[in-house]
């Protein structure tokens, strides 16, 4: 498969008071075009990702908003799949390239989340759950149910959950774009305020502003990372209709597709940016992606097997937990980060894993150095 990452750009992630949603899109689009050393008219189509700009910013019709940045106003579409919006926009762009309709496209995602209060943000995020079947749920509450089952079934401990947060905050210290540059120890995470038992404040990814963009092309380019596999799968929107509460089936299916396309095994991947919207989500991810057997993810994390220098480096960027989680941008900024590492020759293969809601949507990408 010939899909190359011709250009990539991430904004700083955080509470970006001076920047509006449109400002974030402008910075990402200009940044990626400059980085790719392309002329704007070479962009044939645009794929825009955002979860909830209507609710957060009272702005919809984002495809038109972004297309008008270009004099030639390329065709554009907006894609929404909760926290997997960015991953899904990448999939749509890849399908368009593989179909032969376009040769060079832009994928951009953004979310401006910090202009609303905490309860309103919680309410907007809960729209990723079933309004009918999960009334009263919150996003942390749903992952708390998954955590409770994982802890009961496999003996995953409070300390193991905290180890995810400690590692990702530590790794974010080397990422200048990360929202947080603050280390925590196990005790600080384990004693932070309860949000939805057993998940505490420092188990949760933050509310973030940010944007990210990539230019994908089917034209062969030397010394640029290549997408060699992708997968996309679904599960039931509500937890009650899931076959199991101790694995995310959509992640497993998306991973199988991506690995088959790439002709790789999980053991050949040494760098992974996974969807750690909560600490328990990273433990689910590293098991469902095949890096560790089911029930072993907590132990492996506490043992340092997912930290820099470990068996597989997970969320070297800081992940959603410390790099930040500007929802519509997240799946794209993961790809930007992995492409950066590949181009700097720091690994041979990298993987990204982007999840929507409590696991109803999953997107996996695998990239190689060339």
């Amino acid at each position: 498969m010939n899909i190359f990452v011709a250009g990539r750009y991430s904004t700083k992630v955080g509470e970006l008071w001076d920047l509006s949603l449109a400002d974030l899109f402008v910075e990402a689009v200009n940044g990626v075009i400059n980085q790719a050393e392309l002329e704007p008219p070479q962009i044939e189509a645009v794929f825009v990702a955002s979860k909830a700009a209507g609710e957060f910013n009272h702005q919809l019709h984002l495809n038109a908003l972004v297309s008008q940045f270009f004099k030639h106003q390329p065709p554009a579409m907006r894609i929404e799949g909760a926290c997997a919006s960015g991953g899904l926009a990448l999939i749509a762009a890849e399908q368009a390239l593989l179909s032969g309709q376009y040769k060079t496209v832009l994928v951009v995602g953004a979310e401006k989340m910090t202009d609303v209060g905490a309860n309103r943000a919680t309410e907007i995020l809960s729209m990723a759950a079933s309004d009918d079947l999960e009334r009263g749920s919150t996003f942390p509450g749903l992952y708390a149910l998954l955590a409770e089952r994982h802890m009961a079934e496999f003996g995953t401990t409070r300390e193991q959950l905290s180890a995810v947060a400690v590692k990702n905050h530590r790794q974010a210290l080397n990422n200048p774009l990360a929202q947080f540059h603050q280390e925590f120890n196990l005790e600080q995470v384990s004693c932070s305020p309860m949000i939805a038992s057993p998940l505490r404040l420092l188990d949760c990814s933050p509310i973030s502003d940010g944007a990210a963009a990539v230019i994908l092309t089917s034209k062969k380019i030397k010394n640029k990372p290549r997408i060699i596999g992708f997968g996309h799968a679904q599960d039931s929107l509500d937890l009650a209709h899931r076959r199991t509460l101790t694995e995310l089936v959509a992640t497993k299916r998306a991973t199988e597709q991506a690995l088959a396309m790439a002709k790789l095994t999980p053991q050949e991947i040494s760098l992974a940016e996974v969807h750690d919207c909560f600490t328990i989500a990273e433990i689910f991810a590293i098991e469902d992606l095949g890096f560790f057997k089911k029930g072993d993810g907590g132990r492996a994390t506490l043992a340092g097997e997912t930290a820099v220098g470990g068996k597989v480096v997970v969320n070297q960027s800081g992940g959603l937990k410390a790099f930040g989680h500007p929802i519509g941008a997240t799946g794209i900024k993961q790809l930007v980060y992995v492409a950066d590492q590949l181009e700097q020759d720091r690994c041979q293969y990298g993987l990204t894993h982007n999840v929507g809601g409590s696991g109803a949507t999953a997107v996996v990408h695998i990239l190689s150095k060339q």
Partner: protein
Amino acid sequence: MNQIKPADYWRQSKRWAQWLGCEGRVIAATYIKVAGSAHVLAAPYAYVVVKLDGVKEKKELMGVGHERLQTGDKVRCVLRKNPGLDQIGLIEYVLKVAKI
């Protein structure tokens, strides 16, 4: 505030009779301390996955009041008012579970 819309409430409430009074067992439980704006006055509250005996169905439901629930608890489906700030709009009742 994101209270339920009257039209949604009317459609959903027509189905409640099939679950009201049903008993079951909690198979996963959390206690939500930070709620969304529609349920902020109800917090803290239990939120659980329940396996219902009679209808052989799994369902996600809030617990009544501030009652704590845990996996294995035997519960029954009941109707309870959802506390809201709106004094003149819809008075929302919600299907919840109470410990037996």
